[in-house]
């Protein structure tokens, strides 16, 4: 059953990617309804696909929060709530042969890229059928089949390896429109850490096929961007590395997709790295346990206005891309998919303790210490050899 759902999710996202026009939209005007008018030539089926993905992410994350409060999910749990347009737009710009590195706020990226929702939820539950076999949890989703090369828990930690993946692509061949590229996500606060600057410098110096995307949700945990960054126009930080970039409206899925697609074309076609800044909002706290008491009244109003999902839905209904019935059907389908994902995760067993030392090494050395707490590290020589 889970496989069937996965194929459905994968095929819908892959279909959306295939269905995209490769021509640039001429206008950057934005309808108040939250997306540019479908008269821009966008295939209505593609738009409905984006809506389907955004709704799935919303439903998944709401349910993940609930599962956290019910102690099905432990540790940290960071949600993409409010960032659905950014997530879906970015992933829509990726080709199947591109690579994706994400932060610890990543469930939506895995889902949009086509990961099985049941396996994502199973990872959150810490079960063997999880995307990382229950070893990683919410922050460390990994799926080589969709070239999702990890969620990373240390702020900035993903940038050097993502840059290294681009290095490997460049090592194996020159630029061209058919070459894969790397997309590396980061949060606004990450632009203050050394790994960000070292990575951008190396990518620009060595001309690597990578697009860095800052998802600027205005807050690094509880610290506003302006209190942390001396240059709060974060995309401008790429200028130090002669790296092109721009700030885009992360609430507009098509704007995000077009900017990311153009950036990826530059990255793969010229080996010119790009820095994008998608301005987005997170609707909840930093993680599930954060009540976000630092939010001001102005923030709250901005959030209310900034929720991309109802705006996108209303726009699609208004311009006839979706009728209310079809939209409701998509909403219901997402709820069913997430309910099935929870069932799948619940049914998946926890990893057996006997597998504790699995995967630590690719080539373990025979006879080395693999003790549990309380076990001696060395045998006494009598019967222990």
């Amino acid at each position, binding site marked *: 059953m889970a496989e069937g759902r996965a194929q459905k999710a994968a095929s819908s996202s892959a279909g959306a990617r295939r269905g995209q026009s490769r021509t640039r939209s001429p206008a950057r005007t934005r309808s108040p309804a939250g997306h540019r008018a479908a008269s821009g030539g966008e295939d209505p089926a593609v738009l409905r696909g984006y809506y389907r993905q955004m709704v799935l992410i919303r439903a998944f994350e709401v349910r993940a929060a609930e599962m956290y409060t019910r102690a099905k999910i432990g540790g940290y749990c960071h949600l993409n709530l409010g960032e659905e347009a950014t997530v879906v737009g970015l992933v829509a710009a990726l080709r199947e042969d591109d690579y994706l590195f994400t932060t610890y706020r990543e469930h939506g990226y895995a889902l949009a890229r086509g990961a099985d929702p049941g396996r994502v939820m199973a990872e959150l539950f810490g079960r063997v059928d*999880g*995307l*990382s*076999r*229950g*070893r*990683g949890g919410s922050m*460390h989703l*990994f*799926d*080589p089949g969709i070239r999702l*090369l*990890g969620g*990373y*828990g*240390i702020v900035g*930690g993903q*940038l*050097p*390896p*993502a*840059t*290294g*993946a*681009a*290095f*490997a*692509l460049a*090592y194996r061949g020159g630029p061209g429109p058919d070459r894969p590229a790397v997309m590396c996500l980061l949060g606004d606060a990450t632009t203050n850490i*050394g*790994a960000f600057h*070292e*990575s951008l*410098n*190396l990518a620009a*110096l060595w001309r690597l096929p990578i697009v860095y995307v800052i998802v600027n949700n205005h807050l690094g945990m509880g610290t506003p961007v302006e209190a942390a960054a001396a240059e709060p126009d974060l995309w401008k930080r790429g200028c130090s590395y002669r790296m092109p970039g721009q700030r885009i409206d992360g609430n507009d899925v098509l704007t995000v997709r077009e900017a990311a697609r153009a950036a990826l074309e530059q990255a793969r076609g010229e080996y010119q790295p790009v820095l994008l800044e998608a301005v987005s909002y997170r609707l909840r706290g930093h993680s599930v346990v954060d009540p976000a008491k630092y939010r001001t009244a102005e923030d709250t109003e901005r959030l209310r206005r900034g929720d991309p999902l109802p705006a996108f839905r209303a726009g699609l209904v208004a311009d006839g891309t979706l009728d209310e019935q079809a939209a409701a059907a998509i909403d219901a389908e997402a709820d069913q998919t997430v309910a099935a994902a929870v069932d799948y995760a619940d049914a998946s067993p926890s990893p057996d303790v006997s597998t504790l030392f*699995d*995967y*630590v*090494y*690719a*080539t373990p*050395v025979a*006879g*080395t*210490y693999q003790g549990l707490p309380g076990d*001696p*590290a*060395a*045998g*006494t*020589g009598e019967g*222990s*050899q």
Partner: protein
Amino acid sequence: MAVISYRQALHDTLRAELQRDENVLLLGEEIGVFEGSYKITAGLLAEFGPRRVRDTPISEEGFTGVAIGAAMMGLRPVVEIMTINFSLLAIDQIVNNAAKMRSMFGGQASVPLVIRTPGGGGQQLSATHSQNLEVWYAHVPGLKVVAPATPADAKGLLTAAIRDDDPVIMLENLALYNTRGEVPDGEHAGQIGQAAVLKPGSDITVIGYSRAAVIALDVARRLATDGVSAEVIDLRSLRPLDRDTVCASVRKTSRAVIVEDDWLSYGIGAEIAATIAEGAFDYLDAPVRRVAAAEVPLPYAKPLELAALPDAAVLTRVIRQTLDATRYPR
């Protein structure tokens, strides 16, 4: 077998591996045009070009992480970090990424990476350029840490490290680069995780690694002329640690001294002493002793530097004390 230097053994191994496997590449500061701070990579840029021998900016976190990402994609990068002191700039990448990716991604990622870096004091490089921080890495599951003491092991362990699918920290030592020894010709891949008995003996076991193993062997040979039969163990691999070889030796000799260039507290010697306590307690005739560096940031002034570092004279004294001991302290 040719007699060559430790430096030459490293150089020749890098060259052979670059020739053998297109996926092997070198990254590091000043390894190309400058030919390496310690000339390990001399001539390799000219022979293999900048694609395979990549000079990096001074960005340890950046280029070490780049190597990790490249390794995830199937390349086999060999990173030179100019000295182990500078690896601290890259420690997040090494500890939080290289060591953990395979495990935390459920066995779906491999990081076949080698980080070569020399440690060691005694060159009047003072506090920030003379440290022995290998225990920091030896502490971390997911990493392998090797520390060759001889030119032969420099070749064998570097070859093994490059061909290993796990991230390997290769501890070199400034004081060993010019030492010479016999090195097997042709193919010679060592076994990571196996200690070596450099000299068999029956009275006492002396355990060291890297430069300290060389000191231990020198001392043991001199003591032999005095009728003392010391067995010398070169750990060679700090993670995984070959506890069996250590314990088997101590069960035979009943006495043990550990010599190490790192600081005493929480050091490699502490781990060895605990291993002996668990694996050979009933066989011991004397307390296990450790000879390690004085716990100060290493000073510049030569007399202070000399006083702070273990040497043959100190090791000889502690071995004699251990042989004489019925109780400790006396």
